[in-house]
């Protein structure tokens, strides 16, 4: 077993090195004009300079802050509303079809509406992020509640639990796997919408900075920004998968 993972590590880094080498060869051979497509070393230099010099660092922090704020807002509202709707069969029958109808609506299509109401402001971006990330969590919570073992509802009736107790003690834990998966999806959406929002509303952040870099043909800065955005996405989803495994350990033991 150990041998295999070691092999995998070796191969993985080998392929990554090859990938970067191919990138370097393509740019060195000038297959694509260096104005558009910087080599790995220039990207790295721009990355180091941007992060050490400060501008890119503060933009990164701004984007991360925006993403997290919107995501947290969406998580609280989504799970709370989802629990309220999901716990009652009647509320589900009345409200869930409308929500399903709205689900395929692209979150970005709400951006013009948000601009009309809030103008090009930080709040507009935040509302768009929260609104876009809200859907998966809301629907996952409702579905999770609907999929709860019916006997647990009967047990709660026998025990005379109040509705809040049913939510807290039975339904939320049983819907937890779906909710946690939707939190991860929501974080991805938050990052995307944070970048789109910054690009459109020219708010301080990586989205605006990579767009500006592209417009003035500073491609190393552009690629450095993309590398940072990828890292943010990677770290975020890794942290949440880690939390998922920790929080769902009791379920793995049960099975």
């Amino acid at each position, binding site marked *: 077993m150990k041998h295999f993972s070691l092999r995998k590590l070796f191969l993985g880094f080998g392929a990554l090195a090859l990938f970067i080498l191919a990138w370097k060869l393509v740019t060195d051979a000038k297959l694509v004009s260096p104005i558009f*497509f910087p080599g790995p070393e220039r990207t790295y230099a721009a990355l180091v300079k941007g992060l050490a010099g400060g501008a890119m660092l503060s933009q990164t922090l701004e984007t991360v802050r925006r993403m997290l704020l919107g995501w947290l807002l969406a998580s609280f509202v989504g799970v709370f509303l989802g629990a309220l709707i999901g716990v009652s069969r009647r509320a589900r029958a009345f409200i869930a079809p409308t929500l399903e109808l709205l689900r*395929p609506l692209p979150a970005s*299509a709400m951006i013009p509406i948000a601009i*009309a109401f809030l103008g090009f402001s930080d709040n507009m971006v935040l509302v768009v992020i929260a609104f876009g990330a809200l859907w998966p969590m809301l629907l996952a919570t409702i579905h999770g509640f609907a999929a709860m073992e019916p006997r647990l509802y009967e047990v709660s009736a026998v025990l005379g639990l109040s509705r809040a107790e049913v939510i807290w003690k039975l339904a939320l834990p049983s819907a937890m796997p779906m909710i946690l998966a939707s939190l991860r999806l929501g974080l991805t959406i938050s990052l995307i919408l944070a970048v789109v929002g910054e690009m459109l509303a020219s708010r301080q952040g990586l989205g605006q900075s990579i767009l500006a*870099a592209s417009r003035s043909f500073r491609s190393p800065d*552009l690629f450095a920004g993309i590398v940072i955005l*990828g890292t943010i996405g990677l770290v975020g989803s890794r942290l949440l998968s880690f939390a998922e495994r920790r929080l769902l350990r009791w379920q793995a033991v049960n099975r």
Partner: protein
Amino acid sequence: MRAASLLKSGWRAALLPVTLIVVAQVAATVTPLESDTLASPFDIARAFGSVMADGSLPKATLDTLKAAAAGCILGVGAGSLLGIVLGLSRLADDALDLTIELLRPVPVVALIPVVMMLLGFGAEMEIVIIALGLLWPSVVLARAAVKEVEPRLMEVSNVLQLGFLARLTKIVLPAILPQLFMSLKLAAGYALVVAVTVEITANPLGLGYGIMMAQQALRPAEMFAYLIWIGAIGWLISLLLNVAQRAFFPAFVKGDGR
């Protein structure tokens, strides 16, 4: 009996949206609505009629759908092919896993400025971004599907000493076809989302651009007409693909009553 229960769940489902529309109309009529951000349902319907009649909405819809479809075919095709190769070859999977895991979390909108710089504005740029956005999910789904193919089928193909191409077309592809369709279904919805996002952010084309222009021209009725239309298209696409899935792969559709 079944029709009665359908009718019963139907009116329950319709109650909320119908109430909302009626309340909005009443509110707009009672208060003399003169707004740059809101419009009454009647005005929205009228605006919808006029953008439909002057041909701007059908053209925008066609532009968006064409880009989404082309991007979808490219992205899912390339992604599934790569995913199948990774699923079949342990070596390739071990080698590329790390690189893919590093590239996958890059948000697709971050690529907009790059592709914009390379290709300029237009349908091509949008198609490339959509394809790139769908690439990694397709890789992951196809790879997982191939790994779940009944091992005995693979043993059979070993016994028969099938070449790579024969193994692909005779064993693997038929076995994973339902999952590939599933992947296409997810991708189609996502393709529309990316298409509209690209159009809103950068590309002067299609439905996303239309809704953005309606907002900037302070025509809220037209803006909401576009919004509802975009939602209806997304809903229609998912409905069509669900029906197709039920018709072609009935065994694969889980009987979820919700």
